[in-house]
């Protein structure tokens, strides 16, 4: 399998009130095409920082991050923006969307902005609508963002992250603001995308149920990867409880 993301000796340091805070300490890992990987750890352990740093949204203090063979630290702001637009997708805990646009417009926006996406505008809109149909939110495509539920909005965010057919989707606690039913629905959609499209997914979560759907789980404590747990690719929902149990006992061993 091709490595799309390779992280070597990654360090991230914040200086707050003249005090140095080493959030990430020599982190090493890689993500392969089509892999679904979860990052877990206690609050303040550096999970989100790791996600934002490896996705190029934040700058690393030291170390190397290779994405699709290109070292992110060597890219200009414009090149990084292009990489994020065409090859990465993002989902956040809060469902950030432009307030003044409809759901469909929010979803189709990155596609129309992309120069690499050579489809016509009509095709881009149709593609966005198809994605929304797949995720069951086609009925709300003309709505404003304040007219829909949190679960619908998060699915719209997933559609937006998918609209340029990215290599990888970074998700920061994508179900954190959702109830259990909505959370399950959202994770089902992410797994489908991972299985059907071969899009790699790297997500940060506190939820074992969410992490159990991933093939790899990295456990991070104080900016260090404490351990890695490998599971099979999640294809059969009936195995979910078993995966959760196994993951839970591994996490307990690590002091979860």
């Amino acid at each position, binding site marked *: 399998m091709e490595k799309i993301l390779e992280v070597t000796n990654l360090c991230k340091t914040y200086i707050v009130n003249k005090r140095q805070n080493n959030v990430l300490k020599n982190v090493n890992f890689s993500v392969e095409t089509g892999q679904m990987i979860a990052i877990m750890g206690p609050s303040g352990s550096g999970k*989100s920082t790791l996600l*934002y*740093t490896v996705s190029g*949204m*934040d700058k690393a203090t030291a170390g190397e991050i290779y994405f699709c063979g290109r070292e992110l630290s060597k890219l200009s*702001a*414009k090149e990084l*923006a*292009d*990489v*994020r*637009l*065409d090859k*990465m997708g*993002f989902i*956040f*805990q*809060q469902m*950030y*969307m*432009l*307030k*003044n*646009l*409809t759901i*469909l*417009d929010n979803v*189709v*926006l*990155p596609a*129309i*902005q*992309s120069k690499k996406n050579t489809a016509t*505008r009509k095709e881009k*809109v149709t593609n*966005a609508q198809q994605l929304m149909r797949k995720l069951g939110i086609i009925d709300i495509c003309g709505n*404003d*963002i*304040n*007219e829909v*539920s949190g679960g619908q909005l998060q699915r719209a965010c997933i559609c*937006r*992250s998918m609209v*340029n057919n990215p290599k990888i989707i970074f998700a*920061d606690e994508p179900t954190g603001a959702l109830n259990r039913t909505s959370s399950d629905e959202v994770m089902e959609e992410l797994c489908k995308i991972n299985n059907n499209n071969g899009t790699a997914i790297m997500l940060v979560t506190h939820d074992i149920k969410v992490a159990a759907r991933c093939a790899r789980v990295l456990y991070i404590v104080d900016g260090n990867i404490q351990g890695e747990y490998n599971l099979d690719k999640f294809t059969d929902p009936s195995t979910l409880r078993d995966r959760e149990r196994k993951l839970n006992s591994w996490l307990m061993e690590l002091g979860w």
Partner: protein
Amino acid sequence: MYLNILKKDLKRKKTMNIILLIFITLAVMFVSSSGNNFTSIFTALDSYMDSAGVPDYFIGTKGTAPNGKSVTDIVKKLDYVTSCKTENCIYTSLDAIKVNNKKIDMQYMGQETLTSFKSSVLTYFDGNNEKITNIDKGELYLKKTFLTENNISIGDKITITIDNVSDEFTIKGYIKNAVFGSSMIDNQNFVLNQADYEKFLKINSLESRKGQYIYIDTTNTASLKQEISDDPTIVFAGDRNLIKTTYIMDMIIAGILLVMSIFLIIIAFVILKFTITFTLKEEFREIGIMKAIGIKNIKIRSLYIVKYFAMSVTGAVIGFICGIPFGNMLLMQASDNIVLNSKSGVLINLICSIAVVLIIMLFCYRSTKKVKHFTPVDAIRNGQTGERFRRKGIIKLSKIHLRPVTFMAINDIFSGFKQFSIVMLSFMIGILLITITLNTMSTLQSDKLISWFSMTESDVYLVFKNSEEKYIVSDGHQKLKEDLKEMENKLSDNGIKAKCASEILFKFTIEKGDYKCKSLSFQGTGTTADQYTYLEGTAPVNKNEVAITYIIADTIHAKIGDTVTISTVEGSSDYIVTAIYQSMNNMGEGIRINEKVELDYSQAFEIFDYQITYTDNPTDNEKNDRIKLIKELYPNYSVKNGGEYVDTLIGGAAGYMNDVAYLIVLIVIIINILVSVLMEKSFFTNEKSEIAMLKAIGFSNRAIICRQTLRMAIVMTAAAIIAVLLADPVGQLAVTGIFRIMGAKNIIFDVNIIQTYIIYPLIVLVCTIISVFIASQQVRKVSSSEINNIE
């Protein structure tokens, strides 16, 4: 606890609080300085006239009446005259004056007199608006225009020679003489020490040069006017209102500054209201949380009221301090000829500053009423309760073929029209102010204005450096015709085909029934009556026809078709009024007499300058060459084109008006930049999370900066277009009153379209857009990873 919440709030929302503080400071600065200017300018003339001691009626006489009766004798016998004070003067001419041993080069337009300070009736003020209390021997004071037009400085030596008497004086300073001080009046009055003045009483030709200034207080000005209307020694007479109207140019400038002050006040309050409402809207989370933990509405409101009170007091103090020099800078532009009463200036500044604080508190009180509408749910759901179904965007990206950046810019405007309308309004008012000012200035400097001075438009004007008294003789008309013919021949010999003309001025009494008045009367030589511009009726083409100005028509209650009687020294004749016209001579006086009427030119009052009109349509380059040639042919005259000549007629105010116009353009640019940048900062503070999100999904800094700048550019361009479209009607409305006072009621702006409607709005637009572009560079500081940290 409240103090702690307040402290935290001030720290945490630093940017928005600083923006609000700046707006409060600006508002206080503008309102206090404008309020001071308002009162100063509105009361300026009356207070100046009062402090200078200008009477109800003023008369200037020269020489002695044939019947030996002086005006003073007549006036003192009138029972409705309560006071009559006189001041002697000696008439001289510019020929008699040398500065630093050089003859001065100032075109002749008015009368020059010497007076003694000791016998002066008026109170005079110096350049620093201080009362002049003494003039030492060997020193004199004169009018400021004399200094500026001749590049003379205070301290220079001036020599006055009349007949057999000559004396040298040091120029002590310039004088503010309330009667002769306006730029519209060309009379030069040199005020001397009594001993120096007495030396000139020994001149040989004293009798013909002696005159009097008569200051009369009366309870019946109308009767007084009628009583003295036939006196031949009167060279100038007018009531206090007429004297006030001679300051029209100063008042135009002051008026424009007033309009600008109103503009600043509107901007200040509109922006304040917006900023307070805007910042309060952003507080929903805090308000929700406070409500959730059980704090009462009244307590929450008081917290915000305390915060805004603290900020408004801080802003008011800074604004009050800055407002004093700012107001003085504006006022200085209008105070060259008038003594502006600014004694109560600081008090007015203080009152205005307190008023702004009170108004802010009122805004705040009204805005905080919304506190009771915020619920704890607002805090929990980040302001989105799911119950707000108000549709925001009206255009859809999926249905419109626009680049996302352009689409977002347009969509932002439509979605948040209220907030963008603030920028639009301030920008529109700014452009309107500039266009109205420039249109007024260019109209007042346009050669088309010549027709408002009872003359025909010509290509070149030969301005007399001294009074051409050779025509003010019985056969002057014939002599003038011959001289004009000779000029035409001389010009023709030098390759210039042209018609030459001139206007002779008389002061005739015109009456209809019981109504009569004295009016300037004009007769053209080298022109025909149909070449002049009339408001109604037809030109007086026959000998027994006249045209009169609407001011004269109103005074004697005459209309077209009426018969009026005009009295000259030869007797009275009846004329039919065939046309009404407008004139700015002597605030609207005028009678146009047909050129065929033979008048005794010995009774003429003055002759206007020679006018040359080309008959062969030369190109602009040829015109420039011809002006050079005419200057060589007529070295004893000052050669001017139409624009320059108009400037002479309006008292050389063009340069001064241009300075004011540039100052206004500069202030408007600064205000617009300030408003736009601060608005952009407020939008940015509110949109940080959106910007971070856009960056996260792959929008480059350039694209986001482009969006921020583009939407402001669209709003400002729309505002500029609306302002340009409104410029003419709004301008007419704003300045018609001013022109009407001068005698013109039908205003057609002389518009320099390229300069007024394209170049200046473009300059303001480009400067503002560049500043918004620079301000929006702050987008670069927002990192996409901050998305979860930004509220």
